[in-house]
């Protein structure tokens, strides 16, 4: 872990330390994930989405969010976790996502919304290197809150990779 730190500090340390912010956390297959609360536009119940042709399975389709067409992504499927049936607690967290090309509004299906935590930069730890088995590209860092571990997501990186880089191959 120590060997990771210097490099990590160099790349993201400053940015992380500057973010003494509030995080909305949600549950995905028993783990707690967090996103910057300022990105959260709203939280709504699950509603059927209109599928879009030629898209990966984790992109469930698009919904009508008060007149705007908003794509919905299932984070379970995106992370390769086993799919579950959508139940009464299944929620869609609508986030503002900024990628290289534009700012998007997107919905993410999660198992349940958990809590809002203040996470100071000093509580953040870089994700340990698990080797190639675990994809850590979209993990901003780990934080311990009340004895629990919260995984902070880099949602911009995730969406940017999915929507900005891949479509060239499709067209």
């Amino acid at each position, binding site marked *: 872990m120590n060997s990771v730190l210097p490099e990590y500090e160099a790349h993201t340390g400053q940015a992380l330390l500057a973010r003494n912010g509030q995080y909305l956390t949600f549950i995905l297959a028993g783990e707690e994930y967090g996103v910057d609360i300022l990105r959260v536009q709203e939280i709504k119940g699950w509603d059927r989405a*209109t599928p879009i042709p030629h898209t990966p399975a984790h992109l469930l389709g698009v919904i009508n969010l008060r007149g705007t067409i908003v794509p919905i992504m299932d984070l379970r499927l995106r992370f390769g976790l086993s799919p579950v049936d959508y139940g009464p607690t299944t929620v869609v967290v609508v986030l503002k996502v900024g990628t290289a090309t534009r700012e998007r509004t997107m919905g993410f299906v999660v198992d349940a919304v958990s809590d809002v935590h203040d996470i100071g930069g000093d509580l953040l730890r870089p994700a340990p290197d698990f080797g190639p088995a675990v994809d850590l590209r979209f993990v901003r860092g780990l934080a311990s809150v009340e004895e629990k571990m919260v995984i902070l997501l880099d949602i911009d990186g995730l969406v940017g990779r999915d929507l900005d880089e891949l479509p060239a191959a499709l067209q």
Partner: protein
Amino acid sequence: MNIDLSQFLAVFYEESFEGLAVMEHGLLTLPEGPADREGVDAIFRAAHSIKGGAGTFGLGAVTEYTHRAETLLDEIRAGRRPVTSAAREALLQATDVLAQMLRALQQGEPVDEAAISASAARLDLLLREGDAVPVPVHPDGPSRTDAELGGSSGNDDNVWQVRFQPHAHFFRTGNEPLRLLRELAQLGECRVETLVASVPPLSTLVADDCHLGFSIKLAGTAPETDIRAVFDWVESDCDLDLTRGRDATPGLLPLATAEAGEIAASAVTAEADVPVSASSGTSVPPADGAPVASQVPAPREPRSANRPADAQAQSIRVGIDKVDALINLVGELVITQSMLSRFGEHFDPSMLEALQDGLAQLGRNTRELQETVLKIRMLPISVCFSRFPRLVHDLSARLGKQVELKLSGEQTELDKTVLENIGDPLVHLVRNCLDHGLESPERRLAIGKPATGTLSMQAWHEGGAIVIEVADDGGGLNRERIHARAVERGLVAAGEILTEQAIDDIIFLPGFSTAETLSDVSGRGVGMDVVRRNIQSLGGQIEVKSRSGQGTTFTIRLPLTLAILDGQLVEVAGQVFVVPLVSIVESLQIEPRALSRVSGAAEVYRLREDYIPTLRLREAFGLAAGAVEPVRRLIVVVEVEGARVGLVVDDLLSQQQVVIKSLESNYRQVPGVSGATILGDGSVALILDVNALVRSGGGLGRVSAGTGVAA
């Protein structure tokens, strides 16, 4: 008082470009000979506003350059020189150079100094010749950009002696001498002496008249143009004398770069001076700063405050009547809403009828609101037509042809997006008409036509569409040459007999150009196929009609708006899709025997005499999984660029107008889908991109393209 002027810059540029358009239009319609007072006035005013604005923003180069054009115009206006074609051309060129300068400044790019000085020299030459007295162009205002303001590099340590005597009505025009003095103080160290000689005795003093004059000694190297620029707005409301003289007054040392503190200090001096000297007179004019300082110099930019400051943001000018209509409708909507909300509080069945009435009213309100909002995006086509007089003027001169341009229906409104995208295709059509369509004057006379050809551009509404017609009275399309060229290019089989209309349509095929030599007017390798593709991408169509020896007419039909589309709802595997109605030729029930496979893979459908390729949406969109295929299926025949494809769907639902929403803004482009819409039940339906679907038919599309031409 430091108003951040940069927020008004965007407005200045916008208004300047409008002013340039006015100048250009005026110049083109200005008859030669003695000046037409009204026409010249309009041009002069436009030039003057640009100069004034540029002065305010410290764009010295623009001010200086515009001054030349303005001087020339002023002499014409005063009747001291007639309108000559040389003057007109020079002024037209000046509008181009100005437009270029302003654009460069707006984008922060370097200006084309060579073009400016060449054009300036041309104007100077014109100014010098003739009996008009040349007005000196301030030699000490070297061309500078706004960045250099304040730190100019003069070469002597002069002191400017400024005598500034506001007229009595000065305050009543919303002006404030103090503001001007402070502005002056930013150009260098100022020493202000207030002239109280003309202050009348208290008994006869009118409190809101201005009786004070100011004598200002300004140290520093500020050029005269900058000093005059300070007084630009009040030119007609004061007497201003500017003299340059070496002044050895101690304490007035030259200041090449005035420090902020010193400016502030001198500003305070100036401020302090005024009330003191004024009170030594009799009464104090309202000059104590606070209330007056907040006054923005109002006369010429009343709209500035409510305009967006962002230069990048696109803006749209909306007639006040449209805005008022919207406000009325929103008012009604609020009333309906409050009426309906009563029902939510306590409802009993006896109120059902009232509720239904209310809902009907709500529906009416909503519909009207939608229509009115859409109208905001509608602009008259004159915005686009206005560039053609100049284009035709320049082109006909270059081609040695005489052309009269007739525009009509300029007030016909269409969507801003459509408007912005129709300009280039129209320019191309007009170029073609001038270059290939109209004959030379000699030829025209020889065949008994008037020497001056006519090019007419018309626009009108027809149904839910706008029709734009570009017509010339030239020779018409040369069908023999078109046919020969088409055969040569392999676009048409050698022995094939085509109807006249089919030959005319060949000009829209990719890879076709009849121009024997590429001229610089048309035929830059961009053909009519590009024109047609552009128009089709806007959801429109183009047709050509030609009568030999009498002329060619291009008719463009465009949807009024890109925000709404007439759609046919179809169902495929339980999902609803929207097919644009404009591309549907017919829909019919599938006759299983008419379906057959070509070489085992591609499927074609026999439609009367033709075979058309089919596209099973279910498979194309990967929707097959899970859904049961219905026995009775339908085929929707769509046509794009003469190519027809049959879309196989499960069911036809209703036809309705749908509001087009972007998939791209929050997601990305999806092949085969042009957008999405929201249906009555709130769910999302995808709109099919028929163009892309037909093109994805690949080789199959071409089979029917051939039959399309022959049909």
